[in-house]
């Protein structure tokens, strides 16, 4: 750094005050992280919980950042409520000496997006504060936008001199100094800068799907490249576009931009955060990177697909949250309990991980059923159901949505989701919870879904083995069986039409006879497994319902 900037950055009062309003810790984490980052700008940061913070002390602070989330239905988080009331009360100080900026955390699926942050922003201005950098409103993927905001806001705050006067002409040179210093903003959770690791260069054959809507031509282009293994797929695309083929079309955006999802070597990824060496197949001798559009929506050009269908899916779920305080007073006691931190964590885990397009492209069902609301919306709905603060109306609405034909039941195979790493596992896990809840709600006898699960499980209790004929008969009923008779299914089963001479399907009788009385299993089929009584004992112990 040049000496004058260094001395400027270390002269006089260098304090920065970061206030957080946070229910489940996101804003608090960010406040701590930004506080550590502030050191690089020569600022001495103090992080304050809004709870217990004295409003009067604001007057003497020349640099203040507010990081605040929104809860309930556009409400302040619990720890911010008192300070908010104080800021709106008679004792609120004048902030004529205060430079401020606000980072608002929220979720666009709520009606009142980032409402609390907006309120703080407005109130600071009303009290006479000077806004140095415009407020940033962050959706659930808040890392990237908040990080960009931090770098800008810290450069501006650093340009407030030791006497509390903002020196706008210095902002540029501070930014230039920071960039020149090579201090990247990549920081670990604990605020330590992660060193950039060099990985060896590798030869990669990059193959990209191309589609030209004018000529309606489709095909693939290939480039042989020498690349550093740690660069991201997005960087590869950008460099092909800038050096090889300017017409190559893909969605570009911030690192976590959910709309940038593409398929790399058979798996959906966010290209900005996926290193090429993490997707190169372990099978092939040569390194091969095959890039295709995702299977959701029609391809518009090259790697870009039409995501309107995702918007339609989302809109169809009326996803905004109805807090229990909807009709009631805004008094704290009127809220149906605040969340325990465990519940809050769960709700957050469900909501925060969602890059909706990415999660939806895990599912093998989504491309085949347009009406299905998709995994991300199932999760949204489920997070409301498990939220203890949800209103009765919202609970019923969300349960109805999940139980409907387009809800969780439409997902045909959770294993297509759970195989996508940790995120896939967590998503599938919650979806399984949702499915069980919905099935249990309908007492298992409500339609084919419940019956399928019920009779499958029941037949395993009866012999330890699956009894296909019982399941077919009980789930499909006489009409379904007749339908299968005409569509060739039964014929193929019974006659072994394409079979290679194996015995005829055992269930001939079971397939064509009308379903027997509930609870009766055709005896001729399963011989029970060895020590079948153990199986029955397990059922009786774990789930007496069967």
């Amino acid at each position, binding site marked *: 750094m040049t000496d004058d900037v260094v001395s400027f950055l270390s002269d006089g009062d260098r304090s920065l005050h970061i206030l957080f309003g946070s229910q489940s810790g996101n804003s608090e984490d960010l406040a701590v992280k930004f506080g550590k980052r502030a050191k690089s700008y020569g600022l001495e940061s103090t992080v304050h919980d809004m709870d217990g913070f004295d409003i009067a002390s604001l007057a003497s602070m020349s640099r203040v950042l507010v990081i605040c989330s929104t809860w309930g239905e556009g409400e302040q988080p619990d720890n911010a409520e008192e300070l908010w009331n104080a800021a709106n009360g008679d004792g609120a100080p004048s902030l004529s000496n205060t430079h401020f900026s606000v980072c608002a955390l929220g979720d666009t699926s709520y009606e009142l997006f980032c409402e609390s942050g907006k309120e703080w922003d407005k109130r600071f201005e009303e009290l006479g504060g000077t806004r140095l950098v415009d407020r940033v409103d962050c959706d659930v993927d808040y890392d990237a936008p908040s990080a960009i905001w931090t770098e800008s806001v810290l450069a501006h705050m650093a340009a407030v001199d030791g006497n509390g006067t903002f020196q706008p002409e210095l902002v540029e040179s501070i930014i230039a100094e920071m960039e020149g210093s090579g201090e990247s903003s990549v920081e670990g959770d604990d605020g330590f800068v992660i060193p950039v690791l060099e990985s060896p260069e590798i030869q990669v054959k990059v193959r990209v799907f191309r589609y030209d809507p004018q000529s309606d031509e489709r095909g693939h282009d290939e480039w042989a490249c020498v690349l550093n293994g740690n660069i991201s797929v997005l960087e590869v695309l950008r460099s092909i576009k800038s050096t090889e083929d300017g017409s190559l079309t893909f969605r570009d955006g911030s690192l976590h931009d959910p709309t940038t999802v593409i398929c790399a070597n058979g798996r959906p990824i966010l290209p900005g955060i996926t290193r090429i060496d993490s997707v190169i197949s372990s099978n092939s001798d040569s390194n091969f990177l095959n890039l295709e559009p995702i299977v959701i929506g029609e391809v518009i050009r090259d790697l870009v697909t039409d995501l309107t269908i995702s918007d339609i899916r989302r809109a169809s779920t009326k996803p905004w949250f109805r807090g229990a305080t909807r009709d009631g007073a805004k008094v704290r006691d009127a809220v149906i309990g605040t969340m325990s931190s465990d519940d809050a964590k769960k709700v957050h885990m469900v909501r925060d991980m969602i890059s909706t397009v990415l999660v939806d492209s895990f599912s093998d069902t989504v491309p085949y059923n347009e009406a299905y609301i998709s995994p991300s919306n199932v999760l949204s709905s489920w997070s409301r159901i498990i939220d203890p603060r949800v209103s009765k109306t919202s609970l019923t609405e969300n349960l109805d949505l999940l139980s409907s034909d387009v809800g969780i039941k439409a997902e045909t195979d959770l294993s297509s989701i759970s195989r996508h790493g940790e995120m896939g596992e967590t998503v599938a896990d919650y979806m399984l919870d949702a499915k069980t809840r919905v099935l249990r709600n309908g007492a298992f006898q409500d339609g084919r879904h419940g019956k399928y699960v019920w009779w499958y*499980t029941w037949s395993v209790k009866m012999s330890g*083995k699956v009894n*296909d004929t019982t399941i077919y008969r009980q789930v499909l009923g006489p009409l379904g069986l007749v339908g299968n008779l005409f569509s060739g299914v039964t014929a193929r089963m019974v006659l072994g039409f394409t079979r*290679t001479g194996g015995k005829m399907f055992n269930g001939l009788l079971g397939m064509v006879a009308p379903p027997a009385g509930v609870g009766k299993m055709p005896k001729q*089929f399963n011989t029970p497994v060895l020590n079948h009584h*153990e199986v029955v004992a397990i059922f009786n112990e774990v789930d007496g319902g069967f």
Partner: protein
Amino acid sequence: MPMNYAYHPGNVAHSSAQEVDDTVFPAAKTLGINLIPLEGATSCGAGIIRQANRRLQLTLNARTFAMAEELGLEIVTPCATTAGTLFEDLTTLRSNPNLLAEVNNVLMETCGKTFTGETEVRHLLHVIVEEVGLDKLSASVKNPIGFSVAGHYGPNIQRKGACGNDDVFQPNYLERVINALGGNPVSLSYRTQSVGVPSLLSEESTALKQAAAVLSEAKNEGAEMLVSICTLSHAVLDVYQVKAGKISGENTSLPVIHFTEMLAFSMGHFNTRLAQLKTRVSVIGN
């Protein structure tokens, strides 16, 4: 020295997929694999029982693991759904000591068994590629397959840890086996896609569209036959293919056999069945 494994037949080898039961033993024997049936093992739940009650499926499978541990053997199965489901449940129990202890309590009370989590679950495909070796496999071939064959893996075992050293998203073990058996492998982009088995009867239309995508891709790519490594997907791709064609409007007519049939036929077991298969391939395979 034969390789010994505890054998789990999968879910429907005793009923709607008896051809798997018929062919797996002679094929394994030819390769020096000794399959010791887990006579008491239950259905793995196929991702269906857990929809009713997770703990129930876990406990039933824990009982199966305990039986394999009593034998001191790893579990092998010709069904991808079973391999995947058992793998998931084994991983869940291993990674959660409290859960393991609770499940063990129930096992002790109900069956007098406990298990430690030491067993392993593998699909026969992985045992063949990684333990037997493709050279030995080639050497056992009496009737080279001789036509174009597409392979279908499905999603269940295509996850980290469950597919041996094969690639999760771009596997090639099955294609390599087809090649070793004298067939011409056709690699499908839909080879790991689900065909909707856990919802076949309840979401039939979607599941059959999923199945149709696999079958029609195989046909379009010039495959004369499809081979499946899952007893359940096999049934959907075969038994339901006419209906899948009707629902999707795609051409889905293609002979479908299970992996163990392909092994057995190429090794000279069931020659009459192979003859039938060849007839079918020449009639509807292209």
